[in-house]
């Protein structure tokens, strides 16, 4: 069993990536209740009620417990505010070892997702013997496609996820070391 107290704390210029606390729940639930977030982060594209969001947060934390890696909380350094979640995601049956991201809309447009995803990807490649990372992105999710491109990722196979068309973006280890910055 992975000890959840061992979830790393990673600092970037403006952000902190860290493990989950019960006190993150209100901000996490507010994010999952936002229609813009739900559009590409929930299985039915609909905003989540608090009970469903609670189970979702438990699943994110349990992913760490079962796998030893998972999605970090992204915190804004200067305010301490919950900004979103970014990191590693590979539930059973997933398309690969994913670098995932999702921020609350109030923090969009500041380059935070790029900053957080770079730090998370660096941590993943440094910590795990992986040849590549993937990101599953909805065909209409242009902000995430743009972010993936800025990380040096390229669109690969197309697939249906939750009944919706997605592309599996990917980046090889060697490319990450050069292209993600």
């Amino acid at each position: 069993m992975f000890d959840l107290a061992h979830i790393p704390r990673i600092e970037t210029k403006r952000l902190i990536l860290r493990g989950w606390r019960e006190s993150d729940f209100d901000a996490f639930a507010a994010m999952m209740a936002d229609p813009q977030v739900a559009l590409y982060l929930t299985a039915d594209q609909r905003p989540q009620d608090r009970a469903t969001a609670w189970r979702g947060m438990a699943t994110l934390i349990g992913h760490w417990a079962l796998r030893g890696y998972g999605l970090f909380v992204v915190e804004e350094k200067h305010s301490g505010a919950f900004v979103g979640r970014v990191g590693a995601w590979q539930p059973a049956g997933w398309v690969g070892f994913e670098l995932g991201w999702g921020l609350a809309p109030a923090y969009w447009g500041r380059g935070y997702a790029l900053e957080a995803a770079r730090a998370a990807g660096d941590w993943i490649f440094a910590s795990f013997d992986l040849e590549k990372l993937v990101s599953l992105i909805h065909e209409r999710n242009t902000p995430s496609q743009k972010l993936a491109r800025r990380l040096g990722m390229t669109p690969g196979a197309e697939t249906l996820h939750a009944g919706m068309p997605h592309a599996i973006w990917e980046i090889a280890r060697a490319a990450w070391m050069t292209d993600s910055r």
Partner: protein
Amino acid sequence: MTIGPTLETPRLILRPPTQADFDGWAQMCSEKETMRFIGGVVSRDAAWRQLATMAGAWAVLGYAMFSVIEKESGRWIGRIGPWRPGGKEGNWPGDEVGWGMCAAAQGKGLAFEAASASMDWAFDTLGWESVIHCIEKANAPSIALATRLGSTVQRENVSMPAPYEDLKVDLYGQTKAQWRARPR
């Protein structure tokens, strides 16, 4: 440091879930009759997420359902124990001790054994004052287990929170004092 304790009964080990439980958990999730009253059959992939949710609930709350391991075989046979998704601030109808056991392990009194140990732990260690069990009227095996534990109907036709908002259950339950005074 793990996310919760390990309990022992004559025939069982109860401990928080781990990745090693996945095959057993997924098997149970594929059993139509077993899953009939606990959310229905789900795929292996969805079963993994349920397992992760349970592990995460342990991490957030300090309690959740135990993975039940049969000592003799070493096999995962079910998940039983304290359950209150959302915690005290959430909308679960109370402090529940719940259960689900794979078909191969049913009929041997093992669920009773695990639920009894869970009741002791919930009252003695979590400090719960009473427990409930959320049971549909047609779920005769669970009603029998609740009755054997000494629980009685407290409220009928109670609506459940998401993701079970279409469901109505009867709340069986008892107080700590009733549990401690039970005939043995």
